């Protein structure tokens, strides 16, 4: 069980530690850089808790094992990076269509194709817009520290169970590979609904079916509207973000994940020179914290979005801010040597204040 003694661990290890603390019973995965520390840790530690670890033949097999285990009502997860997450999209779509919980961790690497193993945020669209077929969304959480890799992994399990939809922890190779001190917090006590839909064998009682096929007149349409309402409820109740120095800001920088750490240092540099600059960091990417953007942009009209891509989250920022707000973009597409320095972002800030 967790103690509150600090631990100095990699982001990927924090994810795995949090999964065990959250009560994960089954992990199914396949090796891929930069996330292989997660299956390595869980292959060692999960069996000690009576859980199941399988190194699967493919990411497709892995996500479908998550589907099967989750259908029985236990907590199940998988993890991967870009190319592997693409393969999992089939299963994620089926889980979304079957209203199944389950946690998917994506430690983003650069792409497209084989790309590279450097930090990237170019899978934002894939993660937040429903990466597979059919029109669905999943919960997407974006940590920016090793502590949050731990805390948000546990939150992903809770939100996933509560809203009966897959949840993704979307991080990148910087967060996965760097070491920081964390407090391994105990699993939060959250009142979660009974999984009275799970398949466990009827025991002579009512039949339970986990499925995504709807052929009856109007059934599929009804399903979509039901999920649409659930996404709205999620946005109303679960949107999370962090603001730094925004109260008097005349320019708001917005960034998620590892980029938000660099941006924060740049904002501190700007403040030290007397520039009124703040930072808005979304923690939930789906639901996107639209209200936070709308309210802050009622007052501050000057915005700068920073991403490790040619611009993906910036679309959501532009859709969320007040109509008369100006949203500028500065991006570094992923790949070796493209991670911006705080000084580089500070220069971009200075151009806009």
């Amino acid at each position, binding site marked *: 069980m967790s103690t509150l003694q600090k631990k100095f661990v990699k982001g990927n290890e924090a994810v795995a530690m949090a999964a065990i603390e959250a009560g994960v019973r*089954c992990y199914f995965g396949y090796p891929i850089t930069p996330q292989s520390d997660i299956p390595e840790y869980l292959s060692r530690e999960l069996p000690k808790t009576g859980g199941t670890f399988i190194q699967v033949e493919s990411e497709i097999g892995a996500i479908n094992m998550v589907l099967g285990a989750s259908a029985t009502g236990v907590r199940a997860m998988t993890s991967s990076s870009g190319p592997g997450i693409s393969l999992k999209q089939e299963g994620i779509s089926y889980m979304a269509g079957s209203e199944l919980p389950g946690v998917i961790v994506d430690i983003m690497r650069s792409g497209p194709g084989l790309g590279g193993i450097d930090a990237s945020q170019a899978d934002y669209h894939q993660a937040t817009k429903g990466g597979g077929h059919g029109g669905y969304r999943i919960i997407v959480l974006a940590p920016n520290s090793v502590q949050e890799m731990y805390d948000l992994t546990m939150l992903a399990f809770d939100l996933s169970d509560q809203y009966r939809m897959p949840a993704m922890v979307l991080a990148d190779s910087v967060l996965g590979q760097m070491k920081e001190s964390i407090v391994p917090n105990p699993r939060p006590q959250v009142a979660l609904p009974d999984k009275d839909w799970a398949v466990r064998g009827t025991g002579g009682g009512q039949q339970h*079916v986990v499925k995504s096929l709807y052929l009856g007149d109007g059934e599929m349409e009804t399903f979509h509207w039901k999920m649409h309402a659930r996404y709205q409820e999620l946005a109303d109740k679960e949107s999370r973000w962090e603001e730094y120095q925004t109260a008097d800001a005349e320019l708001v920088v917005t960034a998620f994940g590892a980029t938000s750490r660099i941006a924060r240092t740049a904002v501190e540099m700007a403040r030290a020179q007397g520039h009124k600059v703040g930072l808005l960091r979304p923690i939930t990417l789906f639901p996107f914290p639209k209200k936070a953007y709308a309210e802050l942009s009622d007052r501050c009209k000057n915005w700068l979005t920073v991403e490790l891509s040619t611009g993906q989250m910036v679309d959501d920022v532009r859709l969320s801010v007040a109509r008369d707000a100006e949203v500028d973009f500065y991006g570094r597409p992923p790949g070796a040597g493209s991670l911006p320095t705080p000084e580089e972002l500070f220069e971009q800030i200075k151009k806009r204040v």
Partner: protein
Amino acid sequence: MKQVFAKPVSLKDVQTHFCPGCHHGSIHRLVAEALDQFGIAGQTIGCASVGCSVFLYGYFNIDVVESPHGRAPAVATGVKRARPDRIVFTYQGDGDLAAIGTSEIIHAANRGEKITVIFVNNTTYGMTGGQMAPTTMPGQKTSTSPYGRDIANDGRPFKMAELLSNLDGVAYAARVAVNSPKNVLQAKKVIMNAFQYQVEGKGLSFIEVLAACPTNWGMNALKANERVGSEMIPYFPLGVFKNNENL
């Protein structure tokens, strides 16, 4: 009056959507009889596949998870590992198991997952309208092999029961047919054995069932039934290819 024949209680009292002469109904019944025989329906979780067999939950009085195309052995792995005390089976067609799902079945078999796989081989994709399957016979005309399956272009049909019998994780591998009373009785015995192996916690049990698909073969029910005996069984021999009680 003594009752000598009844519907298995594991089957629902509903009409199926299967075409006249289709063998799925007979195979469903044999599986249901096995669940009845062992009294395990209440502890059983079925993994449906994609194709005509997707409606498993509509006909069986058991809990069912629907699997993506070909992935039922992976889904069943997740189910069984999460609930090892339950009886878990997949029910898959040839397009599902022997084409898009080859990776999942081979690795589930190699891990020796303690599940039962019912594999229905009717040499065609039924639900999508009779396209060429990995089990389509040489020369057989389908909607995507209009000149007949050309082995130079398409290779030869998979013999899945023999192939899987070579893997150490497989406890039991057999091929049966339901085209005659004799074969039905044999199939029943073999399907019983398959579930017996799972009840006893041995490795994966794999039953290939040769089946007729009159609609997509362009035959009436009788002709299609005859074809199972005259064309399929000579190519796909019936028998038990693996019977390893020591796993």
